[in-house]
């Protein structure tokens, strides 16, 4: 393994393990927080209009947090590595925690909006139409120049203060900024599993793979474009 690959692995492996634990929690008993297979809604085979409405906000928040950890932690390797590489050794743990707090804070706020949107869609008089409209909005955002602006900002990392309160603020700010650009590029994809109560976990897995693949692509000029992240597929082909 090259020295650089070793440095990357030092961060990727712990993040991957924590993500795997979150997946296990979601697939296991805790997964009942998010999908309603255990509810008997046989008449509406594909869409269950009620599961979110049934769940208390605390449960929803926990479920959203688990989703976040499961799906997003693997793509946080680069900013986590940056904050650890560029902080004094005595501050690394603290800086990492501050980054993650900043990042999660932004996503938890986004979670409120996402859950509210999914709830509204599912409880509307025309849930199918409402869900379709939300899905259409997600697709429009996916191909928009603004999505590319957000994706571009996720590459490369700014300088960080090394001392005192400034260092703490910079780490948290990096996390929050990364969260903001991440929300900007991924909000639609993260919303999709919320719209569909059944098949929630497979959809989460697909979305995770898509998000991971997207962040591998190079920055590009923002424009309207169908962005299919093929680089990940090329890597898989090259490796097999």
């Amino acid at each position: 393994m090259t020295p650089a690959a070793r440095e990357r692995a030092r961060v990727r492996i712990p993040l991957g393990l924590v993500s795997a634990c979150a997946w296990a929690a979601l697939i296991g008993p805790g997964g009942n927080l998010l999908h309603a297979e255990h509810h008997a809604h046989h008449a509406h085979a594909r869409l269950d209009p009620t599961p979110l409405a049934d769940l208390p906000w605390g449960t929803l928040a926990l479920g959203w947090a688990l989703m976040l950890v499961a799906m997003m932690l693997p793509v946080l390797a680069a900013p986590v590595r940056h904050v650890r590489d560029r902080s004094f050794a005595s501050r690394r743990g603290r800086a990492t925690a501050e980054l993650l707090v900043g990042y999660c804070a932004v996503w938890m706020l986004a979670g409120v909006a996402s859950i509210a949107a999914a709830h509204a869609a599912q409880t509307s008089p025309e849930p199918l139409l409402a869900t379709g409209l939300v899905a259409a909005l997600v697709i429009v955002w996916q191909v928009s120049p603004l999505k590319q602006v957000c994706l571009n900002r996720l590459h490369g990392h700014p300088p960080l203060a090394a001392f005192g309160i400034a260092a703490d603020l910079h780490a948290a700010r990096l996390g929050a900024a990364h969260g903001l650009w991440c929300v900007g590029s991924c909000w639609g994809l993260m919303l999709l599993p919320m719209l569909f109560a059944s098949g929630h976990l497979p959809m989460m897995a697909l979305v995770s793979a898509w998000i991971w693949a997207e962040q591998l692509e190079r920055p590009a000029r923002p424009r309207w474009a169908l962005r299919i992240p093929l680089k990940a597929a090329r890597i898989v082909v090259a490796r097999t």
Partner: protein
Amino acid sequence: MPVRRNVWELGSDWADPILWYARGVAALQARPIREPTSWRFYAAIHGIHPEIWQQLGYLDLSEPAPSRDLIRRFWQQCQHGSWYFLPWHRGYTLAFEATVRAAVVQLGGPADWALPYWNYFKTGQNGLPPAFASADWPDGQGNNPLFVPQRYGPSGDGNVFIPLEAVNLDALSDPDFTGVDSGGSPGFGGVDTGFSHGGQVHGRLETQPHDWVHGLVGGASEDAPFGGLMSNPDTAGLDPIFWLHHANIDRLWQVWRENPATHLDPTDPRWLDGPAAVGERELAMPMPDGTTWTFTPGQVTNLVSLGYSYDDVSPQTLEAAPGRGGQRLAATVRSPAAERPTAMAARRSTHLIGASRGAVPVIGADVRASVELSAETRQRASATLLGSDPLGHDRVFVNLENVRGSSDAAAFRVYVGLPASARPDEHPEYLAGNIALFGVRKASLPTEEHGGVGLTFVLEITKLWPTLHVGAGGGQLDVRLVPVKPIDARAQVSIGRISITRQGSE
């Protein structure tokens, strides 16, 4: 077998290899840009900026462009900021040489014509080879294709030479081909950037002398907002001296490999198989017979199998620049890192030990900054009798992080620990190294591959560190930046943070 020879040792200013090169360049320049074996197509393989090319008269939007398929396959392919830098440029130079050779043969020239190289480190050879400095052919006729007006030199006055105090061969003493981008050595050949195409940190040979020669030859001028052709990655391939410079860089790779023979190219499959192994475009060059040569780094490590050689790959030393009091240490002096077995050298970790408290704008002729050392570093230094921080086998680097700007032509020397009242040019012993901003403009754009955060430069100061007496200095280290030419505020050059890192055993 073609032998690449020193351009200054061919016998005369217009010796046959140079004359045939000029004729070959003229032939390629006569071909339309849509032809893959044309001059401009080959330059665009390195990089192209349509607006700048148009302004300089290298592109006319009314002329037919190459097909989208050709552009997608070949253009903007330059590998920089990664461990693919050297093998890609080897293949690029080899394919270009074959293309010129084919043109030379068509014109009645020798079938074993080879590209000369410019070894600016050799005594008396740091000036621009005369055939490139003259607007005329040897018979006095104008339109010498080896001459370009957009070559401004270190002082911006058109006098092109490499100031020897601005370049060094320190990279040749790095024992490892690949390194890290976390603040320690990026390695002789550059960083394994994983799935990313190119990173913020250039390898040691890429940084010095490669980037420096680009910046010093291209230079900048009041009339040229984009700098000379060689200063900008998107125009560098248009200057015929580019190829002699890269032949030398390629030769220095071979020098490193052979001196000593314990210097090894990577064996990791991701290097051997090239960027296609990490989902990027495969390395591909158009050949004179109309075919496409696709290659991997693993296929370009052996010069014999590639069918060429150099007349001289002996260990390089850098002579003292004439008339200067100080002398840079010769590259044959081995750094502490070179003493370590390679296996142990691979297992090192990098730690931040000092940083500036804010960004450093680089404006004018003398920029001063201060790096504050960590409490631990100060304590360790003050605990010793000498008031120095004992390194053992560790290495120390100064990092100029997130260097951004709108000019690739800017370049400056970096001094660490120089007393405030001292004149930098009288104290080369405090010179950490030199930074040329080749590629910084592009790296500062949000739509380009670095997301707009600029480049990070790493200079080794291991030899300098014991003399700095960091404990006695109250924990602050002065850093002085001395531009080759005063940097205008309009160039918007800034350094996000200056830091000191220590790379030691795990």
